């Protein structure tokens, strides 16, 4: 691989990095450089070790082998505090914010400025607000983070990193929860900082972003560096092949063009707090309905209501023409409606439990039809789900030890193994690598083919367009129109989404 050890611009160099968790080897002999004022993209499948590399550089995790040099000096941070004071900052992929503190305090956590011995609240509020506005989030800096949605929280995370005054920023999937507009604003900030000489390590599964923002690319596979590219203008096909280790022929499956009877009907439903109003649509058996919209459009609220997770103030939901009462998620589940939630850590997984336990929890009707659980069946069921969804992990492994993308797969696996009638997926591929993404798309198509009604909510327009028979566009909680597949294109959707 192309290494230039004494390149004058090199700020960080990593050599021979290795990491083991007991018997599990996660990284072997990883080495790369980061230069001043550049964006190095770090690519790889779920579980390839990207987050582990970042965590080591940022002092969160200690390596079991290898050395690092930062600004010409040895870099072996024992804690994030060490890394921060050296000028290395990280947005962790999975880290959550402090829900009971204000936005401003979250942004400046651990480094609150003082004036006359007191915390300078005016200044942090002002600076946080300023930073957030530049990222496209217009909320009061005193708002509690608890009251923010995932996307807004992600923006707060980014604001936190950008105010660090770090010389190297590691962004671990910063855009996974963001929409197009917010992403653009983020990239503009990155360009500005680059010009000031700040370096970035940028991790993302959205390969289209890489060409836009990265200067160089490093690809990891199974904990090893398999390629480095001196330019980001590499065909996606090549990158995918390097990541996955085999060529990937296509992304989206071909859809059956013959949906059946109408299965799910949603008539004039509104939420009590007005996040969505008077929304109506229907989904047929074997049909995939995409729901598009910009962040904050109310899509998540809408689908949560249909799944019985949130109350509705008016309207009805019908299955095969029969109105159903939705007072509790179990009501929806009884009717065969399942929801794959967008927030995997908050709503999808029980982190201290094993993969098997997580998957079993929603599937006891199948695993234990007699009402008695046989632990062997639990593991057996989990193993078949693991192989069906290509989860990298063992049935007995805790989900907290899985990489982010693999956790997402567990969520999908546990929901879909029920054999439902209506499947709602909210941001199903957030944080999922290309290879696995194609596999999930196949699963979606397969669900439809087996006669289920599928709803896919996604901020990734290509995903919605490539996957859905029809696309409903939501904006400010109102259904702005439903586009047939042949009419659905980026322009048409964006036009409706921004009304």
């Amino acid at each position: 691989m192309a290494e230039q050890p004494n390149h004058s611009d090199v700020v960080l160099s990593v050599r021979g990095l290795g990491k083991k968790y007991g018997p599990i080897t996660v990284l072997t002999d990883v080495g790369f450089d980061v230069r001043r004022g550049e964006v190095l993209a770090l690519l790889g499948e779920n579980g390839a070790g990207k987050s582990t590399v970042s965590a080591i550089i940022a002092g969160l995790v200690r390596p079991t082998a290898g050395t690092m040099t930062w600004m010409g000096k040895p870099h072996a941070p024992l804690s994030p505090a060490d890394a921060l004071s050296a000028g290395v900052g990280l947005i962790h992929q999975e880290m959550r914010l402090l829900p009971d503190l204000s936005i401003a305090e979250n942004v400046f956590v651990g480094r609150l400025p003082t004036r006359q011995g007191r915390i300078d609240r005016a200044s942090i509020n002002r600076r946080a607000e300023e930073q957030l506005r530049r990222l496209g989030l217009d909320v009061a800096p005193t708002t509690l983070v608890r009251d923010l949605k995932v996307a807004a929280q992600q923006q707060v995370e980014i604001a936190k990193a950008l105010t660090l005054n770090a010389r190297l920023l590691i962004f671990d999937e910063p855009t996974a929860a963001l929409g197009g507009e917010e992403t653009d604003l983020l990239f503009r900030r990155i360009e500005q900082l680059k010009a000031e000489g700040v370096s970035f390590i940028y991790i993302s599964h959205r390969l289209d972003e890489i060409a836009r923002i990265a200067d160089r690319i490093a690809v990891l596979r199974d904990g090893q560096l398999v390629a480095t590219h001196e330019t980001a203008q590499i065909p996606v096909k090549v990158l995918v092949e390097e990541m996955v280790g085999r060529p990937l022929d296509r992304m989206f499956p071909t859809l059956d063009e013959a949906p059946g009877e109408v299965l799910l009907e949603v008539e004039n439903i509104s939420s009590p707090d007005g996040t969505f109003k008077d929304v109506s649509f229907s989904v047929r058996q074997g049909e995939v309905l995409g729901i598009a919209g910009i962040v904050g459009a109310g899509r998540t609220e809408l689908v949560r209501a249909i799944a019985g997770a949130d109350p509705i103030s008016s309207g009805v939901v019908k299955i095969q023409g029969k109105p159903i009462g939705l007072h509790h998620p179990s009501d929806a589940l009884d009717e065969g409606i399942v929801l794959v939630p967008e927030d995997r850590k908050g709503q999808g997984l029980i982190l201290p439990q094993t993969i098997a336990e997580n998957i079993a929890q929603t599937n006891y009707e199948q695993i234990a039809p007699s009402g008695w659980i046989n632990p062997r069946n639990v593991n057996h069921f989990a193993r078949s789900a693991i192989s069906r969804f290509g989860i990298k992990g063992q049935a007995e492994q805790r989900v907290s030890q899985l990489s982010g993308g693999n956790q997402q797969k567990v969520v999908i696996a546990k929901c879909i193994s029920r054999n439902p009638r209506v499947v709602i997926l909210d941001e199903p591929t957030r944080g999922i690598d290309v290879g696995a993404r194609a596999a999930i798309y196949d699963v979606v198509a397969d669900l439809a083919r087996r006669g289920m009604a599928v709803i896919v909510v996604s901020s990734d327009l290509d995903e919605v367009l490539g996957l859905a028979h029809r696309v409903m566009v939501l904006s400010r909680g109102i259904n702005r129109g439903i586009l047939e597949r042949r009419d659905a294109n980026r322009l048409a959707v964006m036009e409706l989404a921004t009304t």
Partner: protein
Amino acid sequence: MASIAGTKAEDAKISWTSYFSGGAIGPFIGLIALCTFLAFTSDTFLTLRNFLNVMDQITVIGVMAIGMTLVILLGGIDLSVGSVLALSGMVLGYLGNYLGWPFGLGIVAALVVSALCGVVSGLMITKLNMPAFIATLAMMSIARGIASIITDGQQIVGFPDWFSSLAIIRHFGLLSATVAAMVVLTIVFFVFLKYRPAGRALYAIGGNPEVARLAGIHVERATLLVYTVCALLAGLAGVILSARLDSAQPSSGIGYELDTIAAVVIGGASLSGGVGGIGGTVVGVLIIGFLRNGLNLLHVSPFVQQVIIGVVIALAVAADTLRARHR
């Protein structure tokens, strides 16, 4: 993909112990070490008779700890168990000895009153969204007050012979009815938590209530039920204690809540919920029981006992961490 192999044998080795202790291997090792030590230092410790005595002595805490395990699994806490125990005994004694109710009916009434305490705590927690700590602290004070009001603080002595013999007569020279009740309850709840979906649901709720709700579990209903069961078991413990002491007094069970919670947590349960089990709780109860018994057999002075108990509890739990780190 990373290699996760090479641990199959070790896994298998650990699993049979962890199967029963519910993963609380550290405390389990602690228990074994403790028993070994006591067996060598006291010549009476390792006798059947002493073992049966210890079983007698742990019955009350053992029964309460079952209910507390459920509560803690759910991520809750119940401080009222000691007071509910006292209330149950007083209701029983009052109805039986003062009002002359048939004693069997008195037992039922005592259990109903206890369960009601749990219902009230549960409603405060689910409907009023109060922290479990506060709701059950309030119930602790209320139940104790009522228990004292019933007879203006007097104890009640002397129950029917058949009743007190429940705790005394050892059938087949082994189990008294009360110890048998504890053993049966332990097995029932062990099986429930391990092999019934409703039992697993408690783990899910404790792990993440929102995830559990989305999975169709009725979190509120389960919570209410668990607090009711916990109080009911505390009431049963009160009945057992009354039989054992052949008397009931409003001051009984003071401080039992800490003992009970300690037993559950020593057994590996996490106060933040979702982790633990009956197996671990049994280990915790046994550690506390054997420890107190053993120190008495060794004639250790009461003040030194306190120090030793503290140290041993710390060691038993620390063993788990050290083992985990070593791997």
